[in-house]
């Protein structure tokens, strides 16, 4: 049985092929879209709306080291307590982990730490000072682990924020 392509189906097939080519370029991290300045914004917009620009480098080529964040809070009379971003929902915890992986982008570190400190001051209204501590996991090889080596958390970032004296316009403000 033969299935001649109608013009409409032929057009749809052509569009599908273009979409898949764009998707393959996105997956391979190939910048095919720098050909002409007039077309590029449209193609980029299309690729971002449709997901055709997506890459799929899951744990590739290497595995990023684990990171964790913790907060040490100090109250007005010197009492201390610890907090973190662990939630009851594993779906939320996975997202917190994604955020931490992106913490390593140098441009956004301080702003992120400041936002986290503000979140901690919101959770703990009595706190006057918060230390943001981000640690990275140093994992021994299997061979080293057999020889007694253990995973070890090492400091990757640390910053101290103090709550500003509240004024009507800066209730949530913090200062590093």
């Amino acid at each position, binding site marked *: 049985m*033969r299935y001649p392509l109608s013009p409409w189906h032929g057009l749809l097939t052509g569009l599908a092929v273009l979409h898949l080519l764009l998707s393959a370029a996105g997956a391979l991290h190939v910048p095919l879209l720098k050909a002409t300045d007039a077309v590029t914004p449209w193609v980029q917009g299309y690729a971002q709306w449709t997901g055709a620009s997506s*890459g799929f480098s899951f744990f590739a080529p*290497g595995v990023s080291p684990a990171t964790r964040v913790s907060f040490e809070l100090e109250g007005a009379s010197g009492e201390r307590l610890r907090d973190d971003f662990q939630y009851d929902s594993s779906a939320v915890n996975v997202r917190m982990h994604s955020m931490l992986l992106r913490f390593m982008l140098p441009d*956004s570190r301080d702003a992120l730490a400041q936002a986290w400190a503000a979140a901690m001051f919101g959770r703990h209204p009595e706190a006057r000072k918060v230390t943001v501590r981000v640690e990275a996991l140093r994992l021994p090889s*299997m061979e080293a682990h057999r020889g007694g080596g253990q995973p070890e958390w090492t400091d990757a970032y640390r910053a101290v924020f103090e709550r500003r004296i509240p004024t009507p316009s800066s209730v949530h403000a913090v200062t590093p």
Partner: protein
Amino acid sequence: MTSNSAASLSAGQRLAAFISAPSSAGPLAVFRIGVASLLLVQAWTLADSLPELFGERGLVPSSVSRSMASPWVPRVDAVAGALAPLGISQAAGVQGLAVLYVVALVGLLLGIRTRLSAVVAWVVHTVLMNSGNFFAYGVETFAHISLFYCAVMPVGAAFSHDVSTGRLSGAPSAAATLSLRVLQVHLCIIYGTTGVEKALGPVWQDGTALWEVLMQPQYGQFDFAWLASVPWVVKLATWSTLVVEVGYVVCIWPRSTRGLWVLMTLGMHLGIAVMMGLWLFSGMMAVLTFAAFGWNLFAEALSARARAAVVLPFHSHPAR
């Protein structure tokens, strides 16, 4: 189509049949139902965390997340800014978007005004993802791609309210075939590129990648330290992952290996879910492969069993 007639066709005619021979929209409907179900579960699990993820005083300030955002897609703060003259706060705007998203997903799941539901879910998801980009991981990428496909493919042409009420035809169509081929080829691109990219990495080549993954507290659901004393198990699992992903591109197409590869792929994602706790991501990937390559095999096996159940009673009495 019989094998004789298939053999008599030219390559061009076979290609034309491959993309345009009318087929049922069943696999696309399975895709739609699976994706909508998983995204509803995801929405439910995240409902209490909207302020942290998207709020004005969230964990990632919009000034920071904007650096990673697409300039071609609006963000929640732009939507909230547009709603502000109406007296709607940003928090209320985010909640409104979330409610709209869930309603659209329910419509998509049940196949009620399927196209409209899919377009709304896709647009809202894209806006939310562009706003909460620091929190996104693999499942968001696949949800984004899947919702776009739900918006443009005839995913409501089977197992839907639209078909049962006569709004849409459930007849086999060339559009359903082309759509399924796009989904299948895109999955091959995904598995092929991620497999090759892994294979280029030293930890995948020396077979220790899964040690590094499973020993991370975020992923390891159990204590996997014992793996250090059986490194061959780690190597086997690491290299098997590469075989499944790279081999997907080739082995998922021939009928003789398709069933095996579907089962191996689903098994790999089950393993990721159980050992790494990534249930939504694994569920999404399993839905994609099952819908694109597994559903037709499954439906054929079911109907063969049903036929056998009808025929066998007459063959079980030699006297007849």
